[in-house]
């Protein structure tokens, strides 16, 4: 208060203070800083005093003050217009609702689709594992998802899913190579065996042709015997004996190892990628607390 300020009578002063206290309380509720609360209340006080002295002929009384305050905005009006301090805003940033990135989901589902397709009747013929194409698609989806998630973390999540999808097929291939290296098993043994047998039969046929030519000349037409004994090595015998189930055994072991490893990796990544702390539950609740419109 300034020394030149004319004093209000006690009742008028009390009425004004009551209003100022209400404004102060609302501003404090919103989170307006102390200095700004004081600044705003000083302005309101200054305006109320100026208005009341203009109206009253002589010393203003409580009814004069009541009439002036009736013309001013209510304390609640400040709830809509004042802003919380920077500190409070920083402590409680606006809550958004991030959604799972669609490409992250597709990246997660694609390898599973590829593996399922391998065991389905729709599996295309050929030796090239079909799921590798799904792996490539998955890696592309995952890369796009992770790029978006990094750019807008408040809008998207799903890094762990994308990473899982991107790594699933490469890990499957890696596991295959490891298994082949460690166990000395050729996963394409069945096909290799067939090829070797064919080659050996061709050689045998050539040898038989040659033998017949030397024995009977070219007058007698050559006929391949219905039964030919071909000697196999121990490994080839094992492959030949287990040929019908071998590819499935290999597939199952590879998939089992991949799934186990991927789940462990997923859990580890999830723990690393999830946001720290517990975010406030909803934006509406946050706004209510801060009284921000």
């Amino acid at each position, binding site marked *: 208060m300034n020394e030149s300020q004319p004093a209000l009578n006690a009742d008028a002063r009390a009425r004004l203070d009551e209003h100022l206290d209400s404004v102060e309380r609302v501003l404090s509720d919103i989170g307006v800083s102390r200095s700004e609360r004081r600044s705003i209340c000083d*302005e309101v006080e200054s305006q109320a005093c100026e208005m009341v002295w203009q109206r009253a002929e002589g010393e203003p009384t409580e009814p004069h003050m009541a009439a002036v305050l009736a013309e*001013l905005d209510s304390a609640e*009006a400040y709830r809509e*217009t*004042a802003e919380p301090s920077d500190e409070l805003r920083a402590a409680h940033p606006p809550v958004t609702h991030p959604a799972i990135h669609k490409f992250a989901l597709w990246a997660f589902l694609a390898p599973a689709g590829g593996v399922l397709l391998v065991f389905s009747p729709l599996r295309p013929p050929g030796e090239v594992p079909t799921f590798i194409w799904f792996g490539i698609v998955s890696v592309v989806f995952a890369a796009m998802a992770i790029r978006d998630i990094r750019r807008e973390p408040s809008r998207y999540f799903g890094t762990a899913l994308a990473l899982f999808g991107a790594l699933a097929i490469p890990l499957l291939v890696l596991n295959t190579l490891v298994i082949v290296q460690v166990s000395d098993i050729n996963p394409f043994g069945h096909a290799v065996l067939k090829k070797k047998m064919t080659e050996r039969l061709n050689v045998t046929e050539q040898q038989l042709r040659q033998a017949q030519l030397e024995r009977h000349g070219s007058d007698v037409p050559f006929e391949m015997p219905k039964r030919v004994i071909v000697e196999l090595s121990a490994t080839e015998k094992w492959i030949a004996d287990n040929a019908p189930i071998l590819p499935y055994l290999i597939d199952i072991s590879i998939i089992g190892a991949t799934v186990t490893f991927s789940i462990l990796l997923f859990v580890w990544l999830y723990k690393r990628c999830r946001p720290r702390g517990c975010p406030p539950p909803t934006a509406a609740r946050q706004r209510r607390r801060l009284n921000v419109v």
Partner: protein
Amino acid sequence: MRSWTSQLRKGVTELVVLAALRQGEAYGYELLQRINDIDGLSLTESTVYPLLARLKREQFVNVRAAPSPSGPPRRYYKLTSTGRRRLRDMLEQWQAVGTAVELLTDGEPQ
């Protein structure tokens, strides 16, 4: 319509206050009267004073206190150079939007 008008006024409040301060420094109530003297602009203290507090925080205005014959010291607000720049930028945006809307509303339907 009322809601739209309210939103429009809310959107231009800062521009209006800065533009009013361009006419010269003023204390809070004086600034309020200066604005409300113009038809079509109707702002109340619960809008202007918190805004002035923010403008001060963002250093768009300077404040000095001077004694008042009728109450507590008056706080006189004056545009800073940053505030002038801000006003100029806002006016450019305002004119761009205004011109665009005029083009749309004045143009004959095709």
